[in-house]
């Protein structure tokens, strides 16, 4: 018999979402910038390039784990409706109580230094072609889980 086991039964995802929503913005600490595609995207797999910059005067350490765990995306259609995570995306974003620790890369950013990461948005959201969406990413600030860094908002124009 095949079954999926959630170990060790961590808190529901909405608690994480609620925590992020209630968290304070942190523009002055960790700066997130998404590079917006210049032209309509024809590719079937879109990965957003995210640049994380340490805006503090002290070294900052952060972990790169799973993009679905590191970032929370807010995706809206042209009517302003929020696009939910796909079923796959929701599974891939269950991160709070991981039994198995996967990639966990420690990055230390000096003041003003940046590191890049890709966020494969098509992996988490079923974005219909064609369509136009706004995307914004947030991420907890390392060592300050009450703070979230919020990226610029980009317009993603997906073509057939």
């Amino acid at each position: 018999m095949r079954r999926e086991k959630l170990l060790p039964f961590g808190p529901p995802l909405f608690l994480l979402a609620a925590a992020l929503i209630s968290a304070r913005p942190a523009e002055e600490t960790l700066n997130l910038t998404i590079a917006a595609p210049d032209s309509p995207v024809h590719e079937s797999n879109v990965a957003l390039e995210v640049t994380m910059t340490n805006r503090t005067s002290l070294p900052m350490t952060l972990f790169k784990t799973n993009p679905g765990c590191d970032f929370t995306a807010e995706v809206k259609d042209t009517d302003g409706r929020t696009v939910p995570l796909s079923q796959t995306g929701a599974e891939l974003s269950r991160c709070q109580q991981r039994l198995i620790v996967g990639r966990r890369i420690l990055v230390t950013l000096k003041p003003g230094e940046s590191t890049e990461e890709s966020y494969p948005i098509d992996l988490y959201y079923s974005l219909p072609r064609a369509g136009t969406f706004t995307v914004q990413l947030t991420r907890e600030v390392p060592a300050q889980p009450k703070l979230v860094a919020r990226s610029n908002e980009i317009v993603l124009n997906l073509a057939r």
Partner: protein
Amino acid sequence: MPLVSIACWRKLILALPFFVTLAIQCGAAQTSLPAVTIQQTRKVIQEQTGEFQITITPAEAPRPVLLRLACDLGTGRAIFEDGSTEKTLTESGTVYVRGVTSSDLPGALTLTAWREGALAPTATAFFDVLASHLSPRIFLEGFDVTGTHQSVVVGQRIQLAVTLHPGFQAQNQQWSIGVAGDYTGGFVHTPLHGGPQPVVRDGSTTTFYWVTSGDNRRVTYRIQLADGTTATADVTFDVDGPAAAHVQVDSEKVVITPGSENSSLLGILGSGISFRAGYAPPEGMLKNFVWVQLIRSDAITVNQNGIRLHCVPKSQPVAGVGAGLDTDFPYDTHNPTFDNPRIALPSDVDAYSRVFHARMFLLWRPGLSNSIAVPLGFVDWSFSGEVVRKDVSANSWILKSGQGGANNPADPFTRSHSYPLWNSLVPYTEVLTCN
């Protein structure tokens, strides 16, 4: 006032075949006016003479017209018999045009007829100078590289094109690039799929990337025309790339370490296993490190309340042995990079064992526009551990066995130009698939 409108010219250009192009007066209102007709009666071949029939009407009272040869675009060039590009004709007759340079763009040469004082030609014929023999030229990024040596680096996009005059009816066009494995058509890397792409070798263009370095790589273009004529053109590449690639692998012992909130972790001590790469980049180019890890298998056995579960990390789409791309592409871009396949040991489980096999690839990106990363080699490594619970209340565990590190510690790095290939993603989130 021009006798032939622009709309009329367009109709003529579209309606007439390539090598016999007519220019005639259009419109009923113009039929009674003096007119000139140009008809190509023999095609113009390079270093040979073609013919145009010029008819000036009305024949009983002809006026002289000035004939001009010009090339608006491209390489084609033609002259009259006397070597000039202008000639005056007082009555209808045949003019001879000699081909000097063959055309690379169809219909770019014109023979125009001008009445005295006119601001626009009375008649125009579009024509080509055909090459005397089939002689294809290879272009790389817009430059003619036929018969030359080109210095490039691995991963650089090589986009070759041959522009043939449409007058040549190609039956078969083929590119011969060399030894399979020395090049690729591209490298696709999405979370769910990754691997090299085939090269399209049929047709007048081809795009590929050298994956291995080496000199005197000859690329040959072959064409066969419908009449059986064949021709070839080639260009030779000297390909530079990173040299002396190596990866040093270090791993600590397998241990049980305290986790957060009364939990324990089975894993490798400290940062885990480390991969430190080194190589000599091509002259003038920078070092960079693109790590890609593929999970080859990851089997976890869980004993819980007397039931033994065989589990794998959930992958997308489901893979039987928990295989696929580890987390993201790339895994990391720092050097060294680390991994530590730790597993949490919750108190409601009696025993755990894990057997993990992975392959860490090292790739190099040339950093040029439109370039791709090329593989330098890989390290096969493994981790295994078996633990049983010692005390429920303290959540303490006994390590029965454990080892981790490169499969071949003496020579861990295998130089290889094979791309990582995957069709699933192992995200390492909360979900285990068990049976």
